[in-house]
């Protein structure tokens, strides 16, 4: 496994990233590589900045006026914060699943079809239907909703809604999917379903997940990065981080002494 990781080029790299909310610094000089077709977990106590850092990758921080991002984040050979990069197009390559499931108040079909429609990804109605069904299958939701695609997305259970959001993100065929604590509002069974889903998804997509549960990080990810007070304390092979961390702070967090 480790040799596989070293051979590939990282799909995204971050170098010396600082993030400020007004005068307050939330992220301090973080550098991290995101390996392709793997799950990278960002862990750390609450308020340590991991969500903020995650949102740098698809420039969602742009929607917050007082937020300033400095540093170099590279994707497809280009700094994504360069003015000549079209952020709208970028977000079709780097998708996001949020903490609380937020399906649109539309039908299940229209939820998943939204992305392909605005990016004009389908050539015909049949093609669009294909995309929707494939995405729902890949998100492991199709069997449960195949007979009621016209019903509102909000009529599903919490876990199903989150899988709908995953299907929605998949429908635009992104390369990277960012997940911000996707299971924190779900019960253990729904969580397990989604974790299993993530494992199958990594064959096609690269996943970066923020989680407050160390156990989840240990279960699903291949690479883990530990954040504390806005700094990247340590990152590396998940197994290594959890069994033999190099930093003391990492050790303290994992053993429950901090956070």
């Amino acid at each position, binding site marked *: 496994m480790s040799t596989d990781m070293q051979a590939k080029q990282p799909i995204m790299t971050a170098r010396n990233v600082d993030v400020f909310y007004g005068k307050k610094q939330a992220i301090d000089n973080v550098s991290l590589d995101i390996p392709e077709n793997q799950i990278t977990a960002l862990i750390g106590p609450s308020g340590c900045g991991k969500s903020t850092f995650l949102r740098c990758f698809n420039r969602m921080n742009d929607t917050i006026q007082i937020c300033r991002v400095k540093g170099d984040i590279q994707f497809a050979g280009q700094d994504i914060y360069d003015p000549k990069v079209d952020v709208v197009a970028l*977000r079709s390559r780097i998708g*996001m699943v949020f903490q609380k499931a937020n*399906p649109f*108040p539309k039908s299940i079909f229209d939820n998943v079809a*939204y992305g392909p429609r*605005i990016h004009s990804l389908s050539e015909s109605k049949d093609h669009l239907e294909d995309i929707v069904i494939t995405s729902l299958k890949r998100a492991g939701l199709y069997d449960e909703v195949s007979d009621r695609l016209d019903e509102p997305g909000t009529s599903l259970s919490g876990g199903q809604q989150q899988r709908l959001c995953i299907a929605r*993100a998949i429908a635009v065929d992104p390369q990277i999917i960012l997940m911000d604590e996707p299971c924190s509002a779900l019960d253990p069974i729904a969580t397990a379903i989604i974790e299993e889903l993530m494992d199958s998804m990594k064959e096609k997509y690269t996943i970066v997940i923020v989680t407050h549960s160390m156990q989840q990080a240990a279960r699903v990810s291949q690479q883990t990065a530990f954040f504390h007070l806005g700094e990247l304390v340590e990152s590396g092979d998940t197994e290594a981080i959890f069994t033999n961390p190099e930093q003391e702070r990492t050790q303290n967090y994992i053993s429950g002494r901090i956070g």
Partner: protein
Amino acid sequence: MNESQDLTLRRASRLSQLREYAIQGALIACSLVAIFTTIGIVASLAFEAIRFFGKIPIQSFLFGLEWSPQTAIRSDQVGASGAFGVLPLLTGTLLISFIAMAVATPLGLLSAVYLAEFANAKTRNLVKPMLELLAGIPTVVYGFFAALVVAPLIRGGGAEFGLQISSESALAAGSVMGIMLVPYISSLSDDVINAVPQAIRDASYGMGATHTETVTQVVLPAATPGIIGSLLLAISRAIGETMIVVMAAGLAANLTANPFEAVTTMTVQIVTLLTGDQEFDSAKTLAAFAIALFLLVLTLGLNIIALRLVDKYKRKYA
């Protein structure tokens, strides 16, 4: 020592208890004025309307196609020679309201969307009060402007294009009424749009939608029930409007859909029938109450539906 103090205490509290009840009673009495007003309105309209329907059968009122209110001048004249069908009035009202909404809806919605989604705080703080100002201008001023400036302009403009537009047209009254309605639509829609949760906006941005795509394909569809509620309230306001139509529309009861003709509305007829010299009992004056009852049912009905829609929408996102 304790005993006398206790007695004093007890007596004082009984008095203040009574005072509490008296004040509470007075307050309830004040609140009942609202109910009495509604009862008064319904009673006065219904009472006179029933007297009217004693003279003119209700079917000919509701389904009659002609409105020319005459009554017998001499007591030995056979029957009333007038026609009291409300339909031409209804079509006039609806025609003008339709024109008004055709003007107000795009202007109001686009303004609301722009102010809620795109404008910066400085622009919002400048423009919003200016739009509210439109709602504060008395309708008699709108009516004067419509009759004095807009109607001749439309007639002159129509003449240039070879159209025969009367000097009192539904178009003139309707378009001015439309501007008057803009703040009603824009202010209510603004509230409704702002109530759409940020979460689904984020979801849309996260998928690579532009701001406009998010607004038109996610936010507005989500806000639709509330927006429809605001439109219904505006229509209700348009139907009940009096002065603009009295001053700029006409008195001719036409059963027409042509915006270039003069039409009359229910409110105009109520004014015409009651501001003249006739005894209170004649069918003409009673007809005004019948029209008003019809008008009241229509506007209240619209309002109830509108409020229920807005309520349902608010509860969905509360």
